[in-house]
């Protein structure tokens, strides 16, 4: 079967060789560069700097100008939620809760600094504001995390949701005023507003909108806010990348991938889930404070809807995919804003677009397109490494298929497609096997008869057509086949019969060709 090797050689030649490590560094660098480039371009445009002069771009509308800061805030919120959902693998439905803590804290701290203490420098005041907001949200995150992270799965999601609702309700009864009559003093009231008198400025007014931050006197200092927002995004990227690419980050990912194995390696699961959870809360707090630059938000906005919206950004961007999250957030923020002309149909169209986007991004064709795009960076090494075994794999999966369809498949060419053809069969089996595996994971005691399924690898669940279990050699070959499938993510998974037809057609064509040009490659050596 010499031609197998030829196929592999051909496949790998079309791919550039980057190790996953190099690819990851490339991905991180690209993320930073993209964000920076976008910022430089937008900042220049928004402030009508030299670049837009050269490109002859007109001043953009006030409305469009207003996008930049909230997009940055949402990016920070979504990327931080991705830390919890994507990297630590826990579904949190309470992200808006931490954002609202930051939002309220931000308003109080910023106004205290600027109006109370008379700080002039907006960068300094904003830096302190963001730091305090993050800190407070982090503390709340820690307190919430203690009960929440003891739970798993759906329970955890529901409890985060409940915690966020509690936070929201409490903040809606929270009144804070700044008294500057003799020095700067903060006045608090809860749960009813008892604050009045002259010389006080209301900062938090319970359920209604409050005094915005990031202002200089009464006007918003936009250029400064742009820079601050950009800095916060960069900070978030640094935190998330530095955390995930470290000992702690690997531990976090390991608790997501396999809890029992992680614990057996000596990794305290709850502590690492907590690190991810609290870090995300800190960043969410900061993003909440950034959102407080506009008076359009009020405590009641930080509800389940908002948490879900951030979750949508994350899911569409890809779990664990930071760059994707940035893109999806930007797109999904701008979309409903630009749809405002549709009036009543706006949210309907938005929802439709969302469904469309989700379906598309889950479409195998699109996925394949993406894989073939990213596989530009795939590594040759890992493919040729297994060339020897892959040859067996073809043979192995061929046998399996032959057993299953109880008539031998015509396989003389395109050995790769045999593995490919085995895949639908495998996937069926894996899908069947998975519930058992999942139960075992969740600690549910399987019925005595099912225990075997729990203990064995799922692939031992494969049977041939006549009901006998597959021998270990075939199983091993299928594993290699799957590995190959991984390596060549763009192999199409086709229907077995369709594949057969195509192969027969190819064969006919091949024969004709062979007759003309003499035998050349193709058949078994």
């Amino acid at each position, binding site marked *: 079967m010499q031609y197998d090797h030829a196929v592999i050689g051909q496949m790998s030649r079309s791919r550039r060789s980057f*190790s*996953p*490590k190099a690819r990851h560094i490339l991905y991180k660098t690209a993320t930073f560069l993209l964000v920076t480039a976008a910022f430089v371009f937008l900042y220049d445009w928004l402030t009508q700097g030299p670049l837009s002069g050269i490109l002859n771009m007109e001043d953009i509308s006030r409305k469009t100008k207003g996008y930049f800061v909230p997009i940055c805030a949402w990016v920070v919120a979504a990327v931080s939620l991705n830390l919890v959902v994507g990297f630590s693998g826990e579904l949190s439905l309470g992200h808006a809760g931490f954002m609202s803590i930051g939002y309220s804290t931000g308003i109080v701290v910023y106004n205290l600094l600027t109006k109370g203490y008379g700080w002039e420098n907006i960068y300094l005041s904003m830096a302190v504001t963001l730091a305090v907001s993050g800190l407070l949200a982090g503390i709340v995150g820690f307190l919430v995390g203690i009960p929440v992270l003891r739970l798993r799965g759906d329970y955890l999601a529901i409890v985060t949701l409940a915690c966020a609702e509690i936070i929201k309700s409490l903040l809606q009864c929270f009144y804070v005023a700044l008294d500057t009559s003799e020095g700067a003093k903060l006045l608090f009231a809860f749960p009813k507003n008892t604050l009045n008198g002259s010389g006080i400025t209301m900062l938090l007014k319970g359920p209604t909108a409050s005094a915005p931050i990031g202002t200089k006197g009464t006007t918003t200092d936009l250029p400064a806010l742009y820079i601050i927002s950009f800095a916060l995004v960069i900070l978030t990227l640094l*935190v998330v990348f*530095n*955390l995930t690419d*470290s*000992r*702690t*980050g*690997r*531990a976090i*990912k*390991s608790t997501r*991938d*396999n809890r*029992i*194995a*992680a*614990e*057996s*390696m*000596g*990794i*305290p*699961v709850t502590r690492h889930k907590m*690190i991810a959870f609290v870090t995300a809360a800190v960043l969410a707090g900061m993003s909440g404070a950034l959102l407080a630059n506009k008076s359009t938000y009020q405590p009641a906005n930080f509800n389940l809807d908002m948490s879900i919206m951030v979750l949508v950004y994350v899911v569409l961007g890809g779990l664990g995919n930071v760059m994707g999250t940035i893109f999806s957030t930007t797109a999904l923020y701008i979309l409903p804003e630009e749809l405002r002309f549709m009036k009543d149909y706006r949210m309907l169209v938005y929802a439709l677009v969302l469904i469309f986007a989700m379906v598309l991004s889950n479409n195998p064709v699109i996925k394949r397109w993406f894989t073939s795009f990213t596989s530009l960076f795939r*590594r040759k*090494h*890992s493919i040729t*490494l*297994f060339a020897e*075994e892959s040859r067996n794999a073809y043979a192995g999966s061929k046998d399996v298929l032959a057993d299953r369809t109880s008539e031998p498949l015509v396989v003389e060419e395109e050995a790769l497609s045999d593995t490919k053809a085995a895949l639908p069969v495998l996937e069926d089996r894996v899908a069947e096997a998975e519930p058992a*595996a999942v139960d075992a994971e969740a600690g549910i*005691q399987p019925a*005595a008869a099912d*225990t*075997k399924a*729990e*203990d*064995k*690898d*799922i*692939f031992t669940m494969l049977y041939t057509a006549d009901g006998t279990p597959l021998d*270990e*050699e075939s*199983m*091993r070959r299928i*594993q*290699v086949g*799957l*590995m190959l499938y*991984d*390596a060549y993510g763009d192999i199409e998974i086709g229907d077995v019969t369709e594949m057969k037809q195509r192969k027969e057609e190819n064969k006919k064509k091949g024969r004709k060709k062979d007759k003309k040009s003499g035998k050349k490659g193709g058949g078994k050596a």
Partner: protein
Amino acid sequence: MTEQQVKKVRHSETRMVPYPSKAIVPERDLNVTPILETHHLGIQFGGLKAVDDVNLIIGRSEIAGLIGPNGAGKTTVFNMLTKVYEPTEGSIIFNGKDLSGRSIVQASKMGIARTFQNIRLFGQMTVEENVRIGLHNQIRYTTATALLRLPSFWIKEHRQHREALELLSIFGMENMADVRAGSLPYGAQRRLEIVRALATGPKLLLLDEPAAGMNPHETEELMKTIARIRDDFNIAILLIEHDMSLVMGVCEGICVLNFGKIIAKGTAQEIQNNPVVIEAYLGKQKEESLA
């Protein structure tokens, strides 16, 4: 009797290979406290007594085997030793300390590492990252160090990298370091699990069917490697295996479990000729396994 003598007598009762045995147990193990002792270990699931009255002693650098028919309770013993399950009866003394009430993580930190019958690798991560997770408690630095990318971060990361490659070289897997663990062939996944367990710096290594899914050639390689690991790392190894050629070839002491109870202990020779054991492996399995 002196205390020393009492200890010796007790040990010789529960040891798999009663000593003084025919020099199969390494000489150096005879006068030091064993790495693992279990006393009347048992666990009950509802009405089912999955493991009952298991007494084991494993020397500090012994390779021991735990065998038995399917469902005998072998994996359950492992789960108790690693504290995945809390035993309902008896006690486990590891390295002179009682394990009761300790967590899985504590057991790992004390020096028990294991592999899983159903492979539990971190499939999305690379081979090297899997090993690095094993090194989590061996080469440490704080989260703050990582966030700030302080010099010690780079130093420790580099040390982790070097150490991981060195461990992978045990199985000659260093050239696969950058491959996604989930995409490895079956046998390689099993080997990676062993490497990952070794990375935690164990004193006792538990291997649950390490040769499952391997071909005879691979199994033979594995056998040699297990012996080498014991010599190089000077640790104790307890392994569960259905492949009798491996068990008989590498284990110094063997313990046979059936329906949760120990039915025989001894050297490979003794086990192979023990009528009770042959009885337990009835019919087809007997011919297959003990032939």
